[in-house]
């Protein structure tokens, strides 16, 4: 969706300010939100793609005014409620008045280190041969889906070159909304700065974007 998360190329946010010796978390509640989001993700109630979708579905004014873990928390509350895992009253009050739902898995303390060390790969067997070749000119489709997508607005309709072919991966656009993994080929597409930003771009600047196959079409006129 064309939400506030899609920030590439926007202006007016001011300089990047780095905090010296920054701690991993800035408050005790941030620690708990991080861990709750990880542990609930592990249950299988929803996917990582669905969590990203929940975060970017916040109203733009709220998204931009919220700190990072406040966004995570608001999205997590929404997901718990939307999946019927707790009622709004239970979420506010913190005590249970209805029976729990059955979830596929629960993360135990003993499982944390081995499971997170093993990781959660998202590459999958390719469903078909790759449509595009290394070095081929392609154009990112000019599409504006109302649901989750990982194709940033600033490359839509722009032409680039296939620089790497990575194999097939879980397709976030459908997976985020509870559909099957629908794996697709993933490509690194290199865009010239001038193609994206016109004459304002400095000479030689490039931006690479990892694009799923259905985001791409053969270059117009190629």
């Amino acid at each position, binding site marked *: 969706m064309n939400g506030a998360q*899609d*920030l590439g*190329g926007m*202006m007016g*946010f001011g*300089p*990047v300010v*780095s*905090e010296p010796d920054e701690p*991993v*978390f*800035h408050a005790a*509640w941030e620690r*708990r939100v*991080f*861990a*709750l989001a*990880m*542990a609930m993700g592990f*249950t299988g109630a929803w996917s990582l793609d669905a969590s990203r979708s929940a975060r970017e579905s916040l109203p733009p004014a709220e998204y*931009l005014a919220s*700190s*990072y873990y406040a966004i995570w928390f608001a999205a*997590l509350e929404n997901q718990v409620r939307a999946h019927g895992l*707790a009622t709004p009253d239970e979420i*506010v*009050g913190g*005590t*249970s008045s209805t029976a729990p*739902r059955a979830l596929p898995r629960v*993360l135990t*303390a003993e*499982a*944390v*280190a081995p499971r997170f060390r093993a*990781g959660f*790969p*998202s*590459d999958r067997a390719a469903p078909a041969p790759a449509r595009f070749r290394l070095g081929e000119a392609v154009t990112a489709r000019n599409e504006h889906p109302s649901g989750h997508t990982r*194709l*940033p607005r*600033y490359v839509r309709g722009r032409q680039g070159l296939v620089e790497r072919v*990575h194999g097939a*991966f*879980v397709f976030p656009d459908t997976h985020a909304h509870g559909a099957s993994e629908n794996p697709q080929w*993933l490509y690194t597409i290199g865009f010239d700065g001038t193609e*994206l*930003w016109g004459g*304002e*771009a*400095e*000479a030689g*600047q*490039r*931006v*690479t*974007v*990892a*694009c*799923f196959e259905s985001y791409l079409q053969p270059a117009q006129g190629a």
Partner: protein
Amino acid sequence: MTHDHTDDHHDHGSALAPIEARVRALESILVEKGYVQPEALDALIELYETQVGPHNGARVVARAWTDAAYRARLLADATPAIEELGIGGRGGEHMVVVENTADTHNLVVCTLCSCYPWTVLGLPPVWYKSPPYRSRAVIDPRGVLADFGVTLPEATRITVWDSTAELRYMVLPMRPAGTEDLDEAALAALVTRDAMIGTGLARAPEPRP
């Protein structure tokens, strides 16, 4: 980690309650329902606060600087090369390492959220997740570098890597001059988090007497 919500003080918060109270209430209900275990939350926090961090990536960089064959493996297929050093897992399942040279400087961003190579760098700093960086890195990377006090030669071209899928990028910075005699551990101490994102350069060694 402490986990200090004793049951003699229930927070009957509201949508207007401070976020601390709302988070406590959500944790309480998720624990009571049996969806999460407090000890697992503590273990997750301990893992990402103390075990996983940029010291891991610095080891990878130092090895690549001192072992040409390793460097070649790292650039060709980063995930197994990083695994050779016992580093891998969540947020590093599909790694890509890009090399800075005199001609090309690489900068990593996630314009859409906060994708970041957790296994080698830990959890991202606030600035990496915030609108100023996410908006500007792709359109004005040299201006962003200036915010970090980094000035590149004009002839150096900049490539920005937008982390839009499950690929996670780490920059292999240039090895500083005057480090020929340093061993891997001493070299790793020169490798900053920002150097591996591309918003910094590796530190110069301390002059020796």
